[in-house]
């Protein structure tokens, strides 16, 4: 018997014994004569009585340690240098708390925003509420790795990260009435900025585009390169791959670069596109250039009202959207619009009738003139022949 056959038979014996089954006759005879099978059998008996070792005990503190969100270690020397610089320059020192456990982006841990000053306020971040959700928007709470779907009336905790899918849209409401609309493909984290004295609501925009309708309490939009402070305004921030685009529709916005001391004040109808090292050159934009969606408006050109409503009717979910409430009102106008179509038809028919009548009159006139002319010609002929 060669080695492979022996192994196979031995393996069959081992399998039968492991399952606790009686060996068939052929295998039983092999078992009687095979030394290897007996050796394995002895080890099986040993392993059966083998008591696996036990731990000396475990501490629940260790479990807590494992499950505790781990904050990145602070570089104390960076804080010290920044504090010293802030004292020398005379500016305020802003420290940004890094997102807990799994940061969405690596940010400089020390931010000096120089001349931006904010009044002392309580931290209202904990009561930011989700007003409207479109699409499968998701949120990840600090210290957790799983994403949860967002629903209207959800309350967001500080340092929650929000992600909006390509076809999604989310509207957040702050307690002071400030509204923030996050458009598709946007990601950001609810945050606070702590200065030497106070805390301020902040939103760290990782990517995508947001629209802010600001009231009351100070609010700072942070991007990787800048801090954009809202001062009773309505504005949008678009974080592109290598640049940031800010547009102000109402009020004032102050933009401050993180990498330099450059800052710029933006007023109504002004826009600014900047990269980390670029100069801040504010430009004016025409009101016509404003994307109507940024102002929750639908703009239609060269399209009859009735035709537009018919188009919207084909996608009824749009009519159910709270963003299109004014359009729903338009729907009632559509009836008038459709009636106008029949009115237009009647008017057109009337116009055609009038035209036909006119043509008939013209024809009659022409016929009458022709008849008169013919009669005159007949009279002239009679006179010439002496009748």
């Amino acid at each position, binding site marked *: 018997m060669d080695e492979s056959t022996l*192994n196979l038979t*031995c*393996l069959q014996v*081992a*399998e039968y014994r492991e*399952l606790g089954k009686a060996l068939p006759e052929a295998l039983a005879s092999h078992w009687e004569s095979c030394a*290897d099978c007996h*050796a*394995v059998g*002895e*080890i*099986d008996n*040993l*392993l059966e*009585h*083998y*008591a*696996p*070792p*036990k*731990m*000396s*005990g*475990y501490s*629940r503190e*260790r*479990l*807590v340690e*494992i*499950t505790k969100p781990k904050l990145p270690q602070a570089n104390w020397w960076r804080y010290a240098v920044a504090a010293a610089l802030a004292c020398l320059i005379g500016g305020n020192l802003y420290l940004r708390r890094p997102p807990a456990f799994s940061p969405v982006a690596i940010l400089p841990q020390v931010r000096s925003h120089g001349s931006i000053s904010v009044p002392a306020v309580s931290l209202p971040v904990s009561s930011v509420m989700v007003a409207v959700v479109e699409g499968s928007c998701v949120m990840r*709470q600090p*210290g*957790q*790795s*799983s994403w949860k779907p967002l629903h209207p009336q959800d309350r967001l905790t500080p340092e929650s990260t929000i992600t909006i899918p390509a076809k999604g849209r989310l509207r957040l409401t702050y307690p002071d009435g400030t509204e923030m609309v996050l458009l598709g493909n946007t990601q950001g984290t609810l945050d606070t900025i702590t200065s030497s004295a106070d805390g301020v609501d902040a939103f760290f925009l990782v990517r995508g585009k947001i629209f802010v309708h600001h009231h009351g309490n100070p609010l700072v939009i942070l991007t990787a390169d800048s801090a954009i402070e809202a001062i009773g305004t309505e504005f949008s921030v678009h974080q592109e791959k290598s640049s940031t685009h800010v547009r102000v529709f109402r009020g004032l916005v102050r933009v401050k670069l993180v990498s330099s001391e450059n800052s710029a004040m933006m007023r109504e109808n002004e826009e600014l596109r900047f990269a980390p090292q670029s100069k801040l050159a504010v430009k004016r934009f025409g009101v016509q250039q404003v994307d109507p969606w940024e102002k929750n408006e639908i703009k239609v050109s060269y399209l009859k009202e009735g035709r537009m409503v018919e188009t919207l009717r084909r996608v009824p979910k749009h009519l159910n959207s709270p963003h299109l409430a004014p359009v729903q009102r338009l729907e009632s106008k559509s009836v008038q619009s459709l009636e106008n179509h029949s009115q237009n038809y009647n008017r057109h028919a009337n116009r055609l009738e009038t035209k036909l009548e006119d043509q008939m009159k013209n024809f009659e006139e022409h016929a009458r003139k022709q008849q008169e002319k013919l009669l005159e010609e007949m009279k002239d002929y009679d006179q010439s022949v002496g009748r």
Partner: protein
Amino acid sequence: MTIPTSNTLMLTEKAMEQDELLVRRLKNGDHEAFESLVEAYRPRIYATLYNLLGRYQEAEEAIWDVFSEIWKSIGRFKGESKLSTWIYSLTTHVAYHRRRKRGATAIPFEEIEPNVAAPSNLETDVLRHEESRLVEKGISALPESLRVPLVLHSIAGLDYEEISKVLKLPVGALKTRVWRAKLELKKVLEPWMNQPST
């Protein structure tokens, strides 16, 4: 091959449901679920690590690496295999990593430490039992390719299908390796089996 009875099927289904529930709770960051998972798997994971690493101190450190890895990576567990399979693949990964870091392939036979850190006298007695000591010594002296399948099968209690998923080896090859491991173990222990322990 055994034909599963309706009872065993029901038990398997129930266990799978419990696993699913546990995973869902873990993914939501439930600390209590994590604690119950630790309670359930700690003894077997520790025994596996101890027999793979050969040093109880190292096993006690490594077990926290395993649980830490479970907590961090549970979000990536897609449920394509059993939870236990996934946990034992993490365990073997941690053990491999530790052994590679240590740089030694096997601990010399005489240096195998008996597990003396058991909390009660009874357990100490059991652990000091000659047979257990011999088995521990013998397993640690085996080459890694034989030791890992043997430990996962005979000590962790995984079936061949599960070990096949953990080690990414065919079931037939695993059966041969376990059989060979037992034969090697017998050879290693042969001189010691009839002598009193020193």
